């Protein structure tokens, strides 16, 4: 029972307490990959923590893909504490997978700055009420229905999550840009590589929410700042 030396273990009581922000922080700190290991499905020591974790990890993978980071860097496995050999296999396989994706861009000099900003935006998005609430409600919406007793089909709620991830991620990117200095819509659109029309709609939302405001208007172009 031997495996590569490149894993660093963090003990949690149940994968149910692995927050997407934990995974994203690990990546931001320079981890090449994050492997979340919980009990076998149906055999959770804490009843259903591993199912809960799977939802969160699925969302995290969607977030990474949106941000142009390979979702292969994050994986969840279901192994019982009695299956040491499977754990060893999982670590070996995941190491190979991550090697094929390559070293973390966080550790490359050119990409470090931009990738950290992206991951910060993802962490902020994963901390956002709306996104967390939708994922937390997902199971109930599918199985029991919403407050009007309407059961929501899985594809539909996944679409909603997808959308919410996108929206929150772009908003957080905009906020992180404005934190550096006041900028115009075009400046931001260029920097985060998002169509300016979309940036503009997010800017008006953020302004309505009193998160940003107009700093100045120069040659009829408004510059925005963080409040």
């Amino acid at each position, binding site marked *: 029972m031997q495996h590569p030396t490149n894993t660093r273990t963090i003990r949690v009581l149940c994968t149910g307490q692995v927050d997407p922000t934990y995974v994203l922080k690990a990546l931001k700190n320079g981890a090449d990959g994050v492997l979340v290991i919980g009990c076998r499905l149906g055999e959770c020591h804490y009843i259903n923590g591993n199912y809960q974790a799977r939802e969160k990890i699925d969302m995290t993978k969607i977030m990474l893909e949106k941000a142009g980071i390979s979702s292969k860097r994050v994986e969840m496995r279901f192994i019982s504490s009695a299956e040491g050999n499977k754990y*060893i296999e999982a670590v070996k396989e995941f190491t190979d997978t991550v090697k094929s994706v390559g070293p973390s861009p966080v550790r490359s000099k050119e990409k470090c700055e931009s990738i950290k900003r992206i991951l910060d935006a993802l962490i902020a998005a994963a901390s956002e009420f709306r996104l967390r609430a939708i994922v937390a409600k997902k199971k109930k919406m599918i199985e029991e229905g919403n407050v009007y007793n309407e059961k929501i089909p899985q594809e539909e709620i996944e679409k909603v999550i997808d959308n919410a991830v996108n929206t929150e991620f772009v908003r957080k990117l905009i906020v992180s840009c404005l934190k550096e200095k006041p900028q115009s819509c075009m400046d931001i659109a260029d920097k985060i590589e998002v169509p300016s029309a979309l940036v503009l709609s997010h800017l008006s939302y953020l302004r309505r929410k009193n998160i940003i405001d107009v700093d100045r208007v120069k040659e009829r172009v408004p510059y925005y700042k963080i409040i």
Partner: protein
Amino acid sequence: MNELRIGVFVCNCGTNIGGFIDVPAVAEYAKTLKGVVFAQTNLFSCSESGTTSIKEAIRENNLNRVVVAACTPLTHEPTFRAACMEEGLNQFLFEFVNIREHCSWVHMQQKELATEKAKELVRMGVARAAFLETGEMTDVDVIPSALVLGGGISGITAATALGGIGIKTILVEKEKKLGGILKDLYKLYPTGEDASKFLDKKIKSLMKFKNVEIITSTEIKTIEGYIGNYTVTVKKGEKEKEYKVGSIVLATGAVSYEPDKSKGKDFFNFDGKKIISQFQLENKLKKGAIKEKNIVMILCAGSRTPERIYCSRICCMTSIKNALLIKKANKDTEVTIVYRDLQTYGTDYEEELRKSKQAGIRFIRYNEVKPPTVDTKKKSVMVYHELLGRDIELPYDLVVLATPLVSHADVENISQKLKVPVDEHGFFLEAHVKLRPLEFATDGIFLCGCAHWPADITESISQALGAASKAAIPLLMGKVTVEPIISYVDEDKCSGCGICEENCPYGAIKKDPEKKKATVTAVICKGCGICATNCPEQAISIKHYKPEQVFAQLEAAFKEE
């Protein structure tokens, strides 16, 4: 707490860690970490001298955090927490770093890389230690009844013992009748007692206890809960019934290895007729006298091989006992025992060996490199005699193979239901052979008999009594202490959305109708953290596993100081 004063203790664990990791280098490295004021190595941190030196260091250096880099918290966390408490340091200010299971054992061929990893694991532990907070244990009530799984000699003994203590006990057996392997045995060593009479006696003394409920032809459907509060659902045919118990004794036993007849060629030409297993011989003896005149017994048949490396422990004595019985019944019968090694430990068993030699039973040792072969044409067993330096031929009418005890086919199923581990051969693993024998790492579940390891009747009984006593402890105490590692709500952040209540699998967190804030019922909360990851406001965290504690580890994992 004001200034951080962290002490780091790096354990050699004999050579378990020290043999594969440069332990002094790890301790030296620890001294350079922020907040660390003391670091040392221990040969065995868990030993009396190890804990004494930890306590001394806490006292002399006024430590307010203790980090031990050693093995798994499953075995020794209580040891080191106790050491901290004895010095007046709150036990939750102790941090365990695993550099054995997570490092030395899994990187045995890579000393340098393993040492680097150990340093980083210690760095992560020290970073986490800085954020640890004190906590207090709470008491939880216990359901004062026990479940015994398996109605062989171990299960019967355990249930009788528990019954005798006055504990309400449920004994579950999957077969129609109690007795397990014992049902099929002839006579027992070293007393020569009749197995079925002995079993009857045992069952009778069990039946005396009205507080023991015996349910046969029954299997376990589900087991849920934790020490003091297990909910067990059993299934008898289509009928299901639920029991609430405080502790569980696992005594599911083992089975005798029966070789596949179609593959007999590869297994001493086993055919189940003239070449039989020791277990079959027991049945044969039970039915009447043995008529065969030349009997050859081959020991270690199928055990201590690369496929099944363990010693089955019971076969030497079973073979000697049966050989003696045959010889006593008819002294003209030739009985030869072909053995690899003989394990007849203790006075009584050695006496049996002496008697068997006196009775004229022949013993011939074989070498594993040249194991005996059974020639069915010549009707003889060929053995390479080491002292003579040549093959000798032993004519036979009956060959008896001492096959080992092996685990049940459904052992994996039981292991998953109880969430307790088994080894590669399907035998259950206790928490620690010496420190926590008969216990599982999971609190409230205990182990005895052949489910653990091949054991004879005497040993199974002793183990069953031990397991029953251990299982009775929490039941008689009436309370178990529960760690304060539970969910905690920051009411300023809580918006009262109620998502935590919807998702809590235990019903431990509820929205207070007056305050409109989430509140946690400490005793019910298990600390799984589902509420925390689902909380849209990030208002909930798990004590001892708070985000800042996890983040400290995450940062230290990838950052050089």
